[in-house]
């Protein structure tokens, strides 16, 4: 508990740059940061030490968990085709681990305690060794408890074996994250007791009268009745907000203004990684077009945008060509608009450009809850929560709610989820900017596997916000068995979002090949945002034997049960039925 809460709030607002931006620097106050900036380590043999170090992002000293004393952890540069050896030493007094996010490697090198290996005990050194079979931008992070939230994350840059097809003059890694001065376990405990603890933008009595003036009494009452009847909150855009978070860019608070240098006219590649525990970011560089050239380490057909949303654990490589002797702001606002990470591209250190204000907050709609399709006639849908008729999602796919979804752990089920990949998502629609959507992403080649999936595993993303429990198909990790895949099979995952939040879903060890609405291969990724009120499908080639983690990359959702083991084994080895609705 804070002993002097109000002064702290004032200072936090200042640090987060909510009101100001460049003005803050004029005042000459900088957050003291104790953790070193990340060093760049190259080669194929590394010694990494995980330890606790003091940091100070808000004016208060706290303890972060770091690799080699830096936050983020060192940028590791590998080369495709090399075999890398990493000796990871745990100097903490608790077990730790490192997971290599998005990498194809043997299951026992994946770094998930209890699945891949027992974890790294205090004082122990674990040696990771595996061949590097891919190139691009990836990252690594702890898979133990809340250590990722506490700072244990870093960038991985893997150079291609052949020459880089993109002729870039300069490269910057940009790791986005969220920092809280609170114990992350306490954050979770608070959400379990009061799920709207961090939401200070709920609708008030004044909003009611404003709406009456704007839309009339009848419409306002109908709207309030609909939400009140469902007991859902249209302002619930994030579980954890800028009330506690300071958003970081490469480990620097907005006021510290991380700066990447360029020479005017250079082609600069920015490798964005979202290493946040609970924050989706909307990223733009006002005045500069960004050409998206890769996502999750994999090349895409270049697409020029003003802005993109990056879900937790996603990676985007973009090219920019800043001109002139001027600075450009890299602006990454949190999806709930309660704060932002900020940095600068500049020809010289010490420059800065205007920092935009966060966009206005929007309210969730019935469509965001998968109840759309009736011309956004929201009042007509009132009381349809718990609707049990099978939802029709498109001509291709019929959505089935599993019987396990009808328990206390699930507070809603989408009746008519949308398959649209070209919807940029909540808060980004019709904002006047060209916003990247998954519909824009296309791998340059055909489906690398080529086979049609032999079956479909349907999984629903479920939860109960008021109870703060999260699950697949209404079952938490501890209540469900593994999802079994047969070694070598090509399988379709159909994910239906039965909540009103976006969930970035990550399958370890194998690619997730996103399909378009008609079931055609689109793009290869390791983490996919399933938007609120939407479904999507992707193909997986089960070519990596062993137990793999499969989960929502919102750390507290994962911790609360939105997690499964995916077990890939020879057909002869396993006989038990798999979870989820299997369609052949």
């Amino acid at each position, binding site marked *: 508990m804070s002993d002097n809460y109000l002064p702290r709030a004032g200072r936090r607002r200042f640090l987060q740059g909510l009101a100001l931006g460049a003005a803050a620097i004029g005042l000459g106050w900088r957050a003291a940061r104790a953790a070193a900036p990340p060093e760049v380590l190259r080669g194929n043999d590394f010694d990494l030490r995980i330890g606790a170090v003091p940091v100070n992002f808000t004016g208060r000293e706290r303890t972060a968990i770091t690799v080699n004393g830096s936050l983020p952890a060192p940028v590791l540069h590998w080369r495709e085709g090399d075999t890398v050896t990493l000796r990871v030493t745990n100097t903490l007094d608790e077990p730790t681990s490192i997971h290599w996010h998005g990498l194809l490697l043997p299951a026992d090198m994946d770094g998930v305690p209890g699945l891949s290996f027992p974890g790294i005990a205090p004082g122990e050194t674990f040696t990771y060794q595996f061949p590097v079979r891919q190139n691009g931008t990836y990252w690594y992070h702890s898979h133990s408890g809340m250590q990722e939230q506490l700072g244990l994350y870093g960038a991985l840059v893997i150079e291609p074996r052949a020459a880089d097809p993109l002729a870039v003059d300069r490269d910057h890694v940009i790791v986005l994250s969220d920092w809280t001065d609170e114990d992350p376990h306490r954050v979770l*405990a608070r959400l379990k*007791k009061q799920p709207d603890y961090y939401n200070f933008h709920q609708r008030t009595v004044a909003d009611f009268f404003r709406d009456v003036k704007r839309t009339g009494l009848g419409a306002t009452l109908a709207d309030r009745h609909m939400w009140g009847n469902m007991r859902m909150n249209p302002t619930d855009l994030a579980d954890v907000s800028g009330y506690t978070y300071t958003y970081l860019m490469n480990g620097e608070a907005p006021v510290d203004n991380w700066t990447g240098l360029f020479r005017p006219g250079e082609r600069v590649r920015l490798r964005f990684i979202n290493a946040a525990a609970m924050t989706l970011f909307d990223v733009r560089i006002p005045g500069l077009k960004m050409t998206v050239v890769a996502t999750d380490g994999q090349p895409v057909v270049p697409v020029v945008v003003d802005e993109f949303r990056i879900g937790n654990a996603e990676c985007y490589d973009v090219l920019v060509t800043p001109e002139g002797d001027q600075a450009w702001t890299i602006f990454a606002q949190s999806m709930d608009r309660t704060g932002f990470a900020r940095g600068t591209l500049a020809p010289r250190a010490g420059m800065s450009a205007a920092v935009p204000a966060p966009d206005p907050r929007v309210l969730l709609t019935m469509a965001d809850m998968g109840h759309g399709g009736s011309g956004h006639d929201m009042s007509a849908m009132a009381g349809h929560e718990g609707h049990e008729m099978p939802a029709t999602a498109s001509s291709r796919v019929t959505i089935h709610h599993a019987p396990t979804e009808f328990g206390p752990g699930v507070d809603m089920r989408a009746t008519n989820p949308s398959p649209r990949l070209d919807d940029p998502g909540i808060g980004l629609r019709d904002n006047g900017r060209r916003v990247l959507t998954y519909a824009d992403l296309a791998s340059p080649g055909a489906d690398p596997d080529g086979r049609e999936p032999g079956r479909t595993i349907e999984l629903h993303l479920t939860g109960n916000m008021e*109870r703060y429990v999260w699950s697949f198909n209404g079952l938490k990790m501890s209540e469900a068995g593994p999802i079994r895949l047969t070694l070598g099979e090509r399988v379709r995952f159909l994910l239906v979002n039965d909540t009103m939040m976006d969930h970035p879903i990550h399958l370890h060890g194998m690619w997730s090949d996103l399909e378009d609405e008609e079931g055609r291969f689109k793009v290869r990724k390791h983490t996919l945002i399933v938007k609120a009120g939407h479904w999507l499908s992707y193909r997986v080639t089960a070519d990596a034997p062993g137990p793999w983690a499969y989960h929502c990359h919102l750390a507290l959702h994962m911790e609360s049960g939105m997690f499964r083991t995916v077990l890939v084994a020879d057909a002869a080895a396993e006989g038990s039925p798999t979870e989820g609705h299997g369609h052949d």
Partner: protein
Amino acid sequence: MIDRIDRRHVLAVLAPILVLMPPLAMAEDSLPSAVAHMDDNPWQTMFLLDQFEWQDAEEGGALVWDVNAWAGTDDHRVLLRAAGERVDGTTEENRVELLWWHPVASRWDLVAGLRQDLEPVTPRSYAALGVQGLAPWWVHVEATAYLGERGQTAATLEAETDLLLTNRLILAPRLEAEAYGRDDERNGVGNGLSEITAGLRLRYEIRREFAPYFGLEWTGKLGDTADLARADGESVRDARWVAGLQVWF
């Protein structure tokens, strides 16, 4: 005093609950968890001092408390409810409930256990069974039925909601109703709907966990209970200013 037969009666209701509760609570934990570090059904505790207030009673200042505390997992909890009133150095009301809690629907929980009234006058024991949850329009509801000594029955209903004037300044209307199946003259309770309390409290959440408030509470005794109160020379209707603190952790 509670006679033996009635105590046994209460125990007969409670025993299955108390015996079943620990194994049910542990069932989840005994499943092999593949991921060692994860605990998706963690042990949690909460202590909520929902009301801790001074009331300007006719007899002088009254201290009123209402505690709601629990410990357990997402599936099973032990719930403690305690409420009471102290006027002029005398505890006039003191009720404690110890309940097992289990979610049964997305918005509703089942509670079952024991209620013990230590005051007024003659202690009474009851077995309790009820629901609590979130009704439409975000109304928190607790509805509990009680079965007590000598066939006494009782029921309470509590409903409360939050109206956000701002995201920190919150107006909370609250309604309580209590009914009994039989007269209990020693405790001033008559058969039927006995008492209704309506409150309106305005709190300011300095933190979510720490909110001073003030408000108004109106209490009316009804039916036979009102008659008993009149016979004792007590007032039947009472409106009081209140000021207090809501705290949780």
